């Protein structure tokens, strides 16, 4: 089981960004992921958790780092 900090660590690893807040955007205007970077992030988290994170992915889930962490942790716990 992984927690919020593990999701944030994966985000750091894939994006190369440091010191970001949960209000930051995941993408170019925030921690800097492009669409392939986002793909790598999902694959990394799926490998870590063994959970499919693609099927329910929607716009609110990627609005910010915090929303994305929430989405992932909710998925893992269900």
């Amino acid at each position: 089981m992984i927690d919020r900090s593990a999701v944030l660590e994966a985000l750091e690893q894939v994006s190369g960004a440091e010191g970001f807040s949960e209000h930051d955007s995941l993408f170019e205007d925030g921690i800097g992921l492009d669409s392939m970077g986002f793909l790598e992030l999902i694959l990394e988290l799926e490998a870590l958790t063994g959970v499919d994170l693609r099927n329910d992915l929607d716009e609110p889930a990627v609005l910010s780092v915090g929303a994305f962490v929430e989405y992932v942790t909710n998925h893992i716990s269900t």
Partner: protein
Amino acid sequence: MSRTTFPPDLDPVVSMGADPIHQRTRPWPLSEALELAATVEPPAADPRLRSLAIRGLGVRRRKFQDWYRRAWWGWIASRMVGGRLNSGRSEEVEEVVGESMPVGSSPTIFVGAHVGPAGAARYLLAQGVDRLFCVAATPMAVGHEEVHNVKSEFHRKTAPLAMLSALESRRSVYFAADGRHGPDVADARFLKHRVTIRTQLPQLSGRVQIPARIAFATWRGRQIGLHLADLPPIETSDLGSSLSRWFKSYVAEIEAVGRADPANLRLVGGFWRQGAGGVFDD
């Protein structure tokens, strides 16, 4: 510079009833409309297009008018085909499809571009590929394919993920790479103009180790065929050089189909919206 508009006498042929004024006009069958369009005198050529033809494609000055007539026909013909595919009249398009090439059954990354008749590559692939997954900015009623419609930033950001999922479930994917400026693009040169290419497809090709294939619909006279060509594999151990080779091959293929027949240039969308400039209205 002002943009070229359709001559009024040709408008009913092209508009497909989209214009309320012309809704009363019964649209011409595609094969007849294509013939008619070839008889209409084009408006004066835009100087930018003349320069592109002569300097970028090596068209001889004395041959330019013939070249331009064919390029202009291609522009109109593209709209005619796209209009019919959009309005569910694909049976008319089927009548002008020449012999199609087999496209295979294993999952493939098909790379499109804004060349040839609009929407026709998707249409032809959907006929020849068992389960086609398209990523496109505009949905088209061509049927037999699934579409990831990139209607928002969210859809743009998740397009590679959607394509990966499609490939994992043994579907083939199709996406046009001659994209506009944005974060997921690389610089290239098209007809000596600076343009950008979407980088997701070659990166995805490297990620899943499935080589990508060009899939363009092209004109053969007044018939449509599918032009397929292999793009270089992406070697993740030498990503920079691999991507560079891939981009060059992609642009070279677009220029080649345009050189072979100017009707294939289409003159709108893709690179024409970028450095080459929009000579005609979309």
